[in-house]
C-alpha cells in the first residue's frame, strides 16, 4: 500500500475532526478515541515491519516528485518513535478517562489530544525541513491548549511563559530555515544533505556551522538542553498528570529527534566544532539535571529534572557518533519515552491519593497501595538503568561508544549520573512509600485500580524491552545504521 506511512498522521487528524462534532457526548468521544488510537498503533506497527523488510520508505505528497514536492520519509528511527508515540498516546488516553474530568472532556480535550499526535507523528515522519516547522506548530498549538485547558491559576501563569518561549523559538526556527534555504536552495532534507555535502569539499563552510548552531538553539529550546531548559520545570509542573505524561514523554523528544536528524543528516562534516558543542551541552545538561533532581523535594519536579538528564544522555550518545553510541541513543530514546510516561502517570496517582506533591507531607503509601509501590520501584530501577531492565542496554552502549572514542570524561559522567538518578528517584520511594502511614484521612476518591492499568502496561513494555533486548536490537541497529550513513536516506528519497 502506497500510503502506509501517512496513516499515523492521517488517523489522528481525522479523529480530531470527528471528535469536535461529538463534544457533547463524552462516551462517544471515548469510544472513537480508543478505536482510532488502536488503529494508529496497528498502522505504525506495520510501518516498522515494512521498513525492516524493504528499507527506508518515502512518499511524495500529491505525486510531486522529490525534491520539489513535500516528501514523507519513514526510516527505522522515525518508525520506532512513531510506534512508541502511539503506544504512549493509547495509554495516556486510558488514564485520561478516569482522571481528566467532565469539564475538560466537554471542552475539546480529546480533539486537541489527537491534534497533538498529528504534530508529533508528523514531525517524526516528515522529510522536508519546512514541513517539520509546520508539524512543530501543529504540535505546539495543541500543547498550548492542553496546557491551559482547565484554567487554574498556575496553568494560566505558566501558559504565558510557555507561549512566549515557543513563539520566539518558532520565529528563530523560520529564520534558521530561511538561512539554510538561501545557502543550499532546497527544503527537502535529503536534497539539503546532498547539497551540503557538495559544498563541504574541504570542510564545512562557516555559514553552515552558523546554521547548525541556530538549529541547535531552536531544537534545544524544545528539547530542553542545558542553557535552554529554564522554561520546562515551571511549565511542565502546571498541567494534570496525563497531559504532563504526554508532554514529558513526547514533546521534548521531538526536539531531541530533530537535533539527531539534522546533525546526522546535514551537519556531520565538521565534527570538530558542532559535535564538540553538542557534546559539551549534553554533558552539562546531565549535570544540571541531576543537581535539580537531587535538590528538589517535590515528586513532580524530581521527575521533570530527570527529563533533562535523559536528554543529555541521548544527545551525548549522538555527539559521539559511533555505531555503538548511536544504537545506544536510539535505544535509550525509546526506553526513556516509555518510562517517563510511566513515571509521570505514577506520580499523578500518588498526587491524587495524597493531595500533595511535596515529599515531606506523606509517607507509608506502600501499606495501602502495594501494587503502586512496586510498579514505581520497577520503573525507578528501569530509569536508572539497572540490568536487566531497559535503561541498562541503552546506557551500556552509549558508555561503550564513549570509551571507544576516547571521550572518557563524558562516558564517566553518564555512568555517574545513573547513580545519582537512582538516588533521586529512590528518595521518592524511601520517603513516600516507606515509613509510617499518617493518620487516616478518610476514603480516597480516585479510582486507583483503573489508573494503575496504564503505568503497569508501560512498565511491562519497558521490562520486556530490556529483558528481550536481543530481539529488538536488529531494529535499533538498523535505525542507527541509517543515521550513520546518510546515503541510505538520500537514495531512498531521491531514488537515484
Amino acid at each position: 500500500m502506497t500510503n502506509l506511512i501517512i496513516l499515523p498522521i492521517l488517523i489522528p487528524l481525522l479523529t480530531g475532526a470527528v471528535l469536535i462534532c461529538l463534544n457533547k457526548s463524552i462516551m462517544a468521544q471515548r469510544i472513537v478515541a480508543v478505536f482510532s488510537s488502536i488503529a494508529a498503533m496497528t498502522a505504525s506497527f506495520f510501518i516498522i515491519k515494512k521498513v525492516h523488510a524493504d528499507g527506508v520508505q518515502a512518499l511524495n505528497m500529491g505525486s510531486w516528485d522529490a525534491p520539489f514536492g513535500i516528501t514523507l520519509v519513514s526510516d527505522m528511527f522515525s518508525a520506532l518513535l512513531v510506534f512508541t508515540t502511539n503506544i504512549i498516546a493509547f495509554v495516556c488516553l486510558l488514564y485520561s478517562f478516569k482522571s481528566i474530568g467532565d469539564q475538560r472532556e466537554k471542552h475539546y480535550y480529546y480533539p486537541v489530544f489527537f491534534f497533538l499526535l498529528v504534530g508529533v507523528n508528523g514531525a517524526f515522519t516528515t522529510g522536508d525541513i519546512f514541513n517539520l516547522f509546520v508539524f512543530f506548530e501543529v504540535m505546539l498549538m495543541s500543547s498550548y491548549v492542553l496546557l491551559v485547558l482547565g484554567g487554574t491559576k498556575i496553568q494560566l501563569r505558566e501558559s504565558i511563559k510557555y507561549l512566549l518561549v515557543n513563539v520566539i523559538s518558532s520565529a528563530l526556527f523560520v529564520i534558521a530555515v530561511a538561512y539554510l534555504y538561501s545557502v543550499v536552495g532546497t527544503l527537502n532534507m535529503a536534497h539539503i544533505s546532498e547539497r551540503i555535502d557538495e559544498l563541504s569539499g574541504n570542510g564545512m563552510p562557516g555559514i553552515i556551522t552558523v546554521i547548525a548552531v541556530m538549529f541547535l538553539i531552536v531544537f534545544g529550546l524544545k528539547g530542553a538542553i542545558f542553557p535552554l531548559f529554564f522554561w520546562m520545570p515551571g511549565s511542565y509542573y502546571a498541567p494534570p498528570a496525563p497531559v504532563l505524561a504526554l508532554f514529558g514523554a513526547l514533546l521534548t523528544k521531538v526536539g531531541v529527534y530533530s537535533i539527531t536528524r539534522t546533525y546526522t543528516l546535514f551537519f556531520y562534516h565538521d565534527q570538530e566544532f558542532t559535535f564538540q558543542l553538542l557534546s559539551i551541552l549534553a554533558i552539562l545538561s546531565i549535570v544540571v539535571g541531576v543537581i535539580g533532581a537531587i535538590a528538589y523535594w517535590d515528586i513532580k519536579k524530581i521527575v521533570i529534572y530527570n527529563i533533562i538528564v535523559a536528554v543529555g544522555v541521548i544527545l551525548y550518545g549522538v555527539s559521539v557518533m559511533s555505531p555503538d553510541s548511536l544504537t545506544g541513543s536510539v535505544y535509550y530514546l525509546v526506553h526513556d519515552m516509555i518510562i517517563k510516561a510511566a513515571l509521570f502517570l505514577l506520580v499523578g496517582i500518588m498526587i491524587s491519593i495524597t493531595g500533595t506533591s511535596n515529599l515531606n507531607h506523606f509517607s507509608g503509601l506502600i501499606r495501602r497501595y502495594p501494587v503502586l509501590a512496586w510498579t514505581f520501584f520497577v520503573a525507578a530501577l528501569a530509569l536508572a538503568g539497572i540490568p536487566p531492565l531497559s535503561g541498562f542496554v541503552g546506557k551500556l552502549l552509549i558508555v561503550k561508544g564513549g570509551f571507544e572514542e576516547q571521550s572518557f570524561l563524558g562516558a564517566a559522567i553518564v555512568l555517574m549520573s545513573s547513580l545519582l538518578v537512582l538516588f533521586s528517584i529512590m528518595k521518592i520511594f524511601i520517603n513516600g512509600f516507606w515509613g509510617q502511614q499518617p493518620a487516616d484521612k478518610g476514603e480516597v476518591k480516585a479510582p486507583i485500580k483503573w489508573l494503575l492499568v496504564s503505568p503497569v502496561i508501560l512498565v511491562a513494555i519497558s521490562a520486556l524491552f530490556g529483558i528481550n533486548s536481543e530481539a529488538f536490537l536488529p531494529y535499533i541497529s538498523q535505525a542507527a545504521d541509517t543515521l550513520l550513513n546518510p546515503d541510505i536516506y538520500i537514495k531512498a528519497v531521491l531514488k537515484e
Partner: protein
Amino acid sequence: MKKTNNIILESAITLLLFFIVLFSVYIFTAGHYYPGGGFIGGLMTAGAIVLLLITYDIKTVQQILPVNYRIITAIGLLFAIGTSAGALFFDVPFLTHVFTHVDLPVLGDISLHTATLFDLGVYFVVVGVTMTIILTIGEDE
C-alpha cells in the same frame, strides 16, 4: 448594550454584504490558476459576517445565521481530509489531485479539479476558525 442607531452603516450593509459575499465566492473559484482560493475567500466571508456583527450585535447575527462555527470548522476539516484521503482508494500518494476539462454551454471551457473540493474544506475551516476567535473575544464583555 445600548443600541446605536447607525443609519449609514445599516443602509450600506444591506447593499454591500451581497457584493462582499459574491466577491468572496468569485475569489474562491478563481483560485488554482489565478490569485485566490479557499483561504482568502474564507477570510472575506468572515469579514462580511464581522461587518454584520459591527452593525448589529451578536444576538441578532446569531438569529440571522444560527450556526455553530466550531462545527463548521470540523466539517471543513472533514471535507479537506476526505478529499485528500480519496487518494487512498486509488492507491496513489496522498493529496494527489485530478482534473478534467469540461465544455459548459454558457461558461465555455472549464477545468474541474478535485483540488477545489479540498479548497472548499479550507474555506469552511477559515470561516469557522476566524468566527470562533472573533466571537470568543467579542462575547467577553
